[in-house]
């Protein structure tokens, strides 16, 4: 019996020793996190590698392995791995809404972490970019927005006054006509990329009712009619490049910025990435918000990158450590100081050197406006309904419709738009 007792004690001791040893090994072995990212005007390869190096040197328990993907292939790579349900990165940019269901809900992690507080981010970006179906599916990294960039040299050469930030859509059309020079293939301004974006909202137009019940009285409202007629007027100034021109010039949708940098487009609706391009090229430019109707709420098409953790990660705690470093104050400050990121955290944004410049200040003013995404996020059927009514957009852009026919055409599109809306609402479960 004594022998058995000794053997049992020995076995217990061995098990205990093994456990302690393996725990010790586990404690020493750092967890490696897979992180996928892209290079952009705001953070290039070098600055991101430096950020990873800094994090890895400061953390012995978590190490980050960075995979840099080309922007043009990022979607395909993410779709494939998320579709396969394996091999997806622990941390990545989840910039397509379809990927949100596969992002980890961070609510609990944020609640238990004193370092991250939703209130530390710009509220507009937090609400529109990381809150999804009552979950928090990421942290907003940086900010971006559309605004109108105008080429001061071209305005000076044409003897035209710079646009006032308080300008109206009619002012825009007038300036386009004054600045265009058909002989020199110079355009005054570009056309909007689609309806029911900032200018439509600034004119008070909405695609359908807030409760998603109907498009009647919305698609064909006086405000919508006015917005479409404004577009008709713009097209008929003959001072804008056609969508076909831009397709030919920019296979990657880069036409407007390319023309702007070549002094062939006096005004273009661009973003902070383009602003950086213009600065690098030494362009003399200014920025103003998209035109609006005085008295109406003014909107901006703005965004932030959604930095998320994949729900299938085996290391959520370690992934969270990296995510909050990358998209938290420390990482955003690093990317701002060493790259060109414009942070989404006001306390860091205050330190942005660009804020002292004229266009930097104008950019910050734009961020204060109501976001287009605020309405869009609450109305997920917008894209479906827009597809049902895209004919009128094409007809106007191709100059195939008379101005006075626009109200009747919109009236005629209401049944198809309503059908699309009802189908979508039903599909999404009401």
């Amino acid at each position, binding site marked *: 019996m004594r022998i058995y007792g000794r053997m049992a004690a020995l076995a217990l001791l061995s098990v205990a020793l093994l456990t302690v040893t393996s725990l010790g090994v586990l404690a020493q072995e750092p967890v490696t996190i897979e992180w996928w990212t892209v290079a*952009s005007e705001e953070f290039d390869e070098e600055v991101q590698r430096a950020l990873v190096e800094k994090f890895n040197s400061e953390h012995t328990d978590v190490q980050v392995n960075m995979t840099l993907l080309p*922007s*043009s292939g990022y979607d395909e790579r993410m779709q494939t791995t998320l579709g*396969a349900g*394996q*091999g997806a990165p622990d941390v990545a940019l989840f910039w397509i809404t379809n990927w949100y269901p596969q992002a980890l809900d961070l609510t609990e992690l944020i609640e238990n972490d004193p370092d991250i507080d939703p209130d530390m981010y710009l509220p507009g970006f937090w609400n529109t970019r990381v809150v999804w179906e009552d979950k928090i599916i990421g942290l907003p990294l940086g900010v971006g927005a559309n605004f109108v960039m105008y080429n001061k040299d071209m305005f000076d050469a044409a003897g035209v006054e710079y646009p006032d930030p308080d300008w109206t859509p009619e002012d825009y059309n007038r300036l386009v006509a004054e600045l265009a020079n058909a002989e020199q293939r110079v355009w005054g301004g570009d056309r909007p990329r689609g309806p029911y974006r900032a200018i439509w909202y600034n004119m008070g137009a909405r695609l359908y009712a807030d409760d998603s019940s109907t498009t009647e009285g919305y698609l064909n409202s006086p405000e919508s009619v006015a917005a479409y007629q404004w577009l008709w007027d713009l097209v008929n100034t003959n001072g804008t490049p056609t969508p076909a021109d831009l397709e030919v010039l920019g296979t990657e949708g880069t036409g407007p910025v390319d*023309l702007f940098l*070549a002094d062939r487009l006096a005004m273009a609706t661009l973003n902070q990435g383009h602003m950086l*391009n213009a600065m690098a090229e030494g362009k003399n430019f200014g920025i103003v918000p998209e035109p609006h109707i005085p008295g109406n709420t003014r909107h901006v098409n703005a965004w932030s990158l959604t930095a998320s953790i994949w729900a299938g990660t085996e290391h959520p705690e370690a992934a969270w450590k990296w995510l909050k470093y990358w998209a938290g104050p420390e990482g955003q400050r690093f990317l701002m100081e060493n790259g060109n990121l414009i942070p989404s955290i006001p306390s860091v944004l205050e330190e942005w050197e660009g804020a002292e410049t004229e266009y930097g200040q104008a950019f910050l003013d734009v961020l204060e406006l109501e976001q287009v995404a605020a309405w869009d996020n609450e109305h997920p059927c917008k894209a479906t309904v827009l597809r049902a009514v895209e004919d009128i957009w094409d007809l106007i852009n191709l100059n195939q419709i008379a101005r006075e026919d626009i109200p009747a055409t919109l009236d005629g599109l209401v049944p198809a738009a309503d059908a699309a809306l009802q189908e979508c609402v039903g599909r999404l479960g009401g």
Partner: protein
Amino acid sequence: MSQSKDLGPLIAAEAGDSRNRAITSAINGVTARRWLGYGAVYVVLTAIAIVFMIPLLWMFATSLKSRSEIFAWPPSWIPEQPLWSNYAMAFEKYPLARFMMNTSVLVIFNIIGELLAVPLIAYGFARLNFPFKRVLFILMLSTMMIPGQIKLIPLYSIYSRLGLVNTYVPLVLPAFFGNPFFIFLMVQYIRTIPRDLDEAARIDGAGTWTILYRIILPLCKPVLAVMIVFTFLWVWNDFLQPLIYLNDFYSYPISVGLAFFRGRYSVEWNLFMAATLVSILPVLVLYFFAQRHLIGGIASLGLKG
């Protein structure tokens, strides 16, 4: 009479001369017409070649321009001040030489794989008899009808489970199992080779392997050339597969590497064109040296495009 007799040879000689002159002038006329014909053909062909060269020339011109000059109006073929530094900048920005070397490795292994697998499979289908041969052949051909995108996720899943993601194996391994398109080509080609050659070799004591490697393969040079060139081009230009399977930046091939010149908001066209021009040089060189085989191969196979 005697005078005329005396003059006879002279007249005859003159007549001969004039006949010769007529023949010479006729020949000269034909030659001149032929040369004119050649000249016209060459002029037309040169004009067509220039048209085809325009994108390449534009690419070259763009690679030497400043960013704002690219979209200037009126467009210029010759840059105001050629910026050769664009080439250096493109190479400084990304490790293009490394990317091209990676592509070369992929090309070589893919070609080896195809050269090993395709003749074996094609010979089997063309010459050997085995159960379900026709069904298997149709099944093999039917895999060509499946779009690559459909296979992407299942294949990724398999390679991921095997731990082969972020290696070159998924990009090379399929070549060692043959490409249905090449197999089909080679089967058709082998079928045109008389069976008498196989039978003669067999009478001389050759086995199946010997017949394949000593009789059939040497006669298949045109189709093998087509295989090599097409594999080279496909692998050199393949963007999606390496993008899906590789993680390590320094293991990317040139097709993926070039995509880095497209930013999120804009494209550095001048650097992009410089890098692209350099990246297509090996393809042009290959075409230059292999065009005779390629054209011969394509003609003998009845391929287009």
